[in-house]
Structure formats: structure tokens, C-alpha cells
């Protein structure tokens, strides 16, 4: 895919997304409102298409599809995380033993790093403190030893995210 057609594709996708967003938020379908929406989404698409659609065009659909499957798993982890925090908070002795851990991942792209960082924050007992994008290094605050081991020993989440974005190894 050449650079120029990639750019046009990015603008088109951004324009469609912005215009759909406008229609759903306004709910008014007369000429004035739709026309204003068309102009606004065109301006936004021209200015900021490179924010929404980035990187190379390869396997974008596969990645998007895998990402939605991953979201389902992530949603389940969020519910588990809430029960975990609720248990620790309401337990009379508060079973917490905070540690700060560091580990490296093979991830490099912005979107993969953001996904892993937000996933870590939302899953049981861990919050991301720092991310170093050049080395894929994460610094994580864990509320007890068990959730820390889940990240440093089992590495379930890292390998899942790496699989979604095809950045293993």
C-alpha cells in the first residue's frame, strides 16, 4: 500500500467515524444539522486523521477482530478485580502487602503499550506506574504478592496482548 492511498484511507475512515458520531449525538436529520455535521467531520478528518488510523495497513482487520475477543476476556478480569479489591477492603485485617515490580515486554507499538498498561490497571491488584516505550519496560504497583506473580511469573496478560498485536518475540 503506497503512502498516499494510506493517507486517503485514513481520512475516509476518520470522516465516516466522525460523521456517524455526529449523527448519533445530534439525532436531528434536517439539512442544516446534517450539512454542518458533514463540514465539521471533514475538517476534523483532514486535521487529525493520523491520530485515529496509524501505522502500516497490514492485518488491521485481524487485529481489530482479535482485540474485540480480548476485550471480552478483559471485561471478566475487571469484574474479578472489583471483587478482589472489595474483599481486601472489607476484610477486617486488610490482607495487603504492597510491592513495586518491574518487567520487560516485547511490545513496542503505542496502541499495544496503552492496551497493556490500561489492562494492568483494571485487572486484580495491579496499577501501572511507568512505561518505557523504547524497551517495552513496565513498572507496576501491586497490592500483594499474588497479583505481582501473575504478571512476572505467569505472564498471561502480556502474551495475550502480544498475540493480539502480533508483536511476540
Amino acid at each position: 500500500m503506497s503512502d498516499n492511498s494510506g493517507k486517503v484511507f485514513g481520512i475516509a475512515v476518520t470522516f465516516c467515524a466522525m460523521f456517524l458520531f455526529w449523527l448519533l449525538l445530534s439525532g436531528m436529520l434536517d439539512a442544516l444539522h446534517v450539512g454542518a455535521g458533514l463540514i465539521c467531520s471533514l475538517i476534523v478528518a483532514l486535521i487529525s486523521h493520523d491520530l485515529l488510523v496509524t501505522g502500516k495497513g497490514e492485518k488491521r482487520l485481524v487485529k481489530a477482530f482479535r482485540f474485540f475477543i480480548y476485550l471480552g476476556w478483559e471485561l471478566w478480569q475487571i469484574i474479578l478485580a472489583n471483587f478482589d479489591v472489595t474483599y481486601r477492603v472489607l476484610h477486617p485485617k486488610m490482607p495487603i502487602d504492597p510491592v513495586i515490580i518491574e518487567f520487560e515486554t516485547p511490545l513496542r507499538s503505542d496502541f499495544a503499550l496503552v492496551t497493556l498498561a490500561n489492562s494492568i490497571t483494571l485487572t486484580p491488584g495491579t496499577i501501572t506506574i511507568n512505561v518505557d516505550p523504547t524497551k517495552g519496560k513496565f513498572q507496576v504497583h501491586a497490592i500483594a504478592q499474588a497479583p505481582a506473580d501473575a504478571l512476572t511469573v505467569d505472564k498471561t496478560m502480556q502474551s495475550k496482548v502480544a498475540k493480539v498485536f502480533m508483536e511476540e518475540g
Partner: protein
Amino acid sequence: MVELIVVIVTILLAAGVFFMLSGAIGLLRLPDFYTRLHATGKCDTLGEVLILFGLLLYHIFVYSPGAELSVQLVPVKLLFLICFIFLANPTATHAIMKAAYNTGVKPWKKGDPRM
């Protein structure tokens, strides 16, 4: 049918309020800045989302049938809110955490007195 939806919505709202409450209790009980963020960062996300999802169901099945288009689009807006909360809440938690860590707030270790 409507009764069943109302029951489900009530359960969702109650669960949301429960998680928000445990987040607030965690904010008061936990010993230091970082562990408090664990409580607020996670419980607030799911609590808010459950409440919004309950409102969304109520709107679709009880409130909006027969209403005009702009009223029927309200669930879509609630859905957008849910997406943005899922995106913004962990990011904000992480930003606060990073700011605290970089300015040298000391993490609490087991056995320390409460701060």
C-alpha cells in the same frame, strides 16, 4: 417483560452502588496513596459502568418505546459514556500514580504505621 427488566435494572444499580461504596470505604481504610488508588481506580470504573448500563437497559425497554428519534438515541450516548469511562478511568489512575511516584511519594510497606 417490563417487570423483569425493572428487576434486572435494579440489580445492576444496586451492584453499581455497592462497588462505589466499597471504593469509598477503601479510600478511607487503606493505608497510603498508592493502595487508595487501587480502590478508587477499579471500583469506580465498574460501579459507574454498571449504573450506566442499568440506565441504558431501562431507557431501551421502559422509557423510549414510541418516543421520538432524539429520545431513542439516548442509550447510544450512554454507550459512548461507558466506552469513554473504560478508556479514561485507568488512564487517569495511571497518570496520578505516575505523578506521585515521580515526585517521590513513598509507598507503604507491610508493618509500617498508617500514613
